[in-house]
């Protein structure tokens, strides 16, 4: 064969790498996922449904959905606003803003939670004022929302900034030159240009908002039926040796992850299609 040696060696390396990667994925990702579902359904569907149907579990699910329903739209708006400001305008402190957007990713979630305790807790900066006005933030829903918003802030902005930078300002300038006002430019030009990226960012933001443990754990206070989100509820059940219950609730979170993955794949596919199909 006249095939150069380097390609055969290349193929061997290729196989070894692929096998390694698959083995790694199998042990660290697939196996735990299977364990979660098999543990949850170990004693059949009945106990599984019972575990999900307890008042505390239902309250945790409701709270998680509520938190996501508040924080995801907020971060959608913040993310779009920040990306718009960063990519369409010049202003002092821009690079500082870009760095700050990444802060929630680089800080430990526990620290993020503590920040809010230090600000709004009974001994915190605003503690006395809040107490005087009978407002409760820490160990209550507002605190959990704040922590979740903080943790999930980067997802939308990080998705949009590179996209909007690449698209530049031409489309917006064209719209303005044709007489469109700010809202019309956003509604008819910018938003359609970023819609797939935005949806993708929102999806990731939602997954994290529902799954966040560390920061929420610090501010929630773990009050059953009141301030327990799904991840916190899983921990409590597990610590109480209620394995079926813990894995049942965990399997719901895992299911959410799977749905997110599928939706993300579909979005990426549409996004690519949209992108390459309409290039200049």
């Amino acid at each position: 064969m006249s095939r150069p040696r380097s390609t055969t060696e290349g193929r061997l390396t290729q196989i070894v790498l692929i096998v390694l990667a698959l083995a790694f994925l199998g042990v660290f990702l697939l196996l735990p996922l299977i364990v979660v579902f098999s543990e949850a359904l170990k004693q059949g569907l009945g106990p599984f449904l019972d575990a999900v149907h307890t008042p505390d579990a239902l309250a945790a699910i409701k709270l998680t959905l509520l938190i996501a329903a508040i924080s995801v739209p907020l971060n959608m708006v913040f993310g779009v606003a920040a990306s718009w400001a960063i990519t369409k305008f010049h202003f002092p402190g821009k690079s500082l803003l870009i760095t700050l957007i990444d802060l929630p990713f680089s800080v430990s979630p526990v620290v993020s939670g503590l920040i809010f305790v230090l600000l709004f807790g009974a001994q915190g900066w605003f503690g006395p004022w809040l107490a005087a006005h009978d407002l409760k933030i820490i160990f209550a829903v507002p605190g959990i929302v704040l922590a979740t918003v903080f943790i999930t802030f980067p997802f939308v902005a990080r998705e949009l900034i590179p996209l909007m930078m690449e698209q530049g300002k031409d489309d917006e300038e064209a719209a303005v030159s044709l007489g469109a006002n700010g809202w019309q430019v956003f509604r008819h030009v910018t938003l359609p240009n970023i819609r797939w990226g935005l949806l993708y960012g929102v999806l990731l933001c939602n997954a994290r908002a529902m799954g966040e443990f560390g920061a929420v754990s610090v501010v929630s206070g773990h009050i059953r039926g009141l301030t327990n989100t799904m991840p916190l509820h899983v921990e409590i059940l597990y610590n109480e040796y209620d394995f079926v219950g813990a894995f049942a609730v965990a399997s719901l979170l895992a299911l959410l992850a799977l749905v997110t993955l599928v939706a993300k794949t579909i979005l990426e596919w549409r996004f690519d299609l949209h992108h390459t199909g309409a290039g200049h």
Partner: protein
Amino acid sequence: MIKVQNVTKRFGDFAALRDIDLEVRPGEFIALLGPSGSGKTTLLRIIAGLEFQDSGQVLFSGEDVSDRKVADRHVGFVFQHYALFRHMTVADNVAFGLTVRKRRDRPSRAAIAARAEELLRLVQLEGLGDRYPAQLSGGQRQRVALARALAIEPKLLLLDEPFGALDAKVRKDLRRWLRELHKQMGLTSIFVTHDQEEALELADRVVVMNNGVIEQVGTPEEIYMHPATPFVSHFVGETNRIPAGPASGGAGDEVHFRPHDVEVVREGGEALLVDNVFRKGGAWRVEGALAEGGLIVEIDIDVAQPRPNPGETVLIRPVRSRVFNANPEGAQP
């Protein structure tokens, strides 16, 4: 009448425009010609209201519009990469300027559709209204961008490198067509280009820019035949530059002459050592080095004359030439 007075613009430390004065008469077709970084696009964007000058005024028909935004200046702007809205059909793109009007000024849906169709007919894209920009060729996209800009019935049409992204053949056709359209619609048009051929062929007057200043304003004929500065002489058309002899100028002076402004003589010319000869249109293009000083010079000789051979020496004499001081400010491209 468009008037630009003492306009200056800086980007940080970079002076993009320095003290620019320009007048454009109604119905004129003007080219802003210059190398990249010369400030031509910045000037166009300032006239449009997409960028604002640091000092100086822009006047439309005697009215100071310096503080007006682009939407209030009522100009048509065609972007270099067209900036078509990719998620809208061609017809919706063209109609955009009408659909975003305030309700009381907005024509009916049917009237807008009819107007879009009329504009598409004008730019010879009849029947393509349902397509998306991605489904069009470069030349077609360019014409959609033009139709979209014309929809708001601007008096002034501004085009940024309108042919830059097109291949040579399409470019040539589109140029001629744009010239016709300009005349037919009675527009005043200003376009930016770095392509001198485009500027000379298309424009009534050419504004040659370099390093943020206007080097010369004139008809294509004036610019080519009577360049005012060494930069214009060098940038527009082909030019040979040789140091002036004692007879033709002072120290530091340069003689500029076009390749076709040279004749071959029997005696009394400069000796040129022929290096390469090829046919260029109706002439022999002769490349060689001057015997004195070794400078590379290109000349054109009518094909009716004998073809010089490489290695030969011919005597040449510029028929028409200009003398410039070689080192005034801004002389180098």
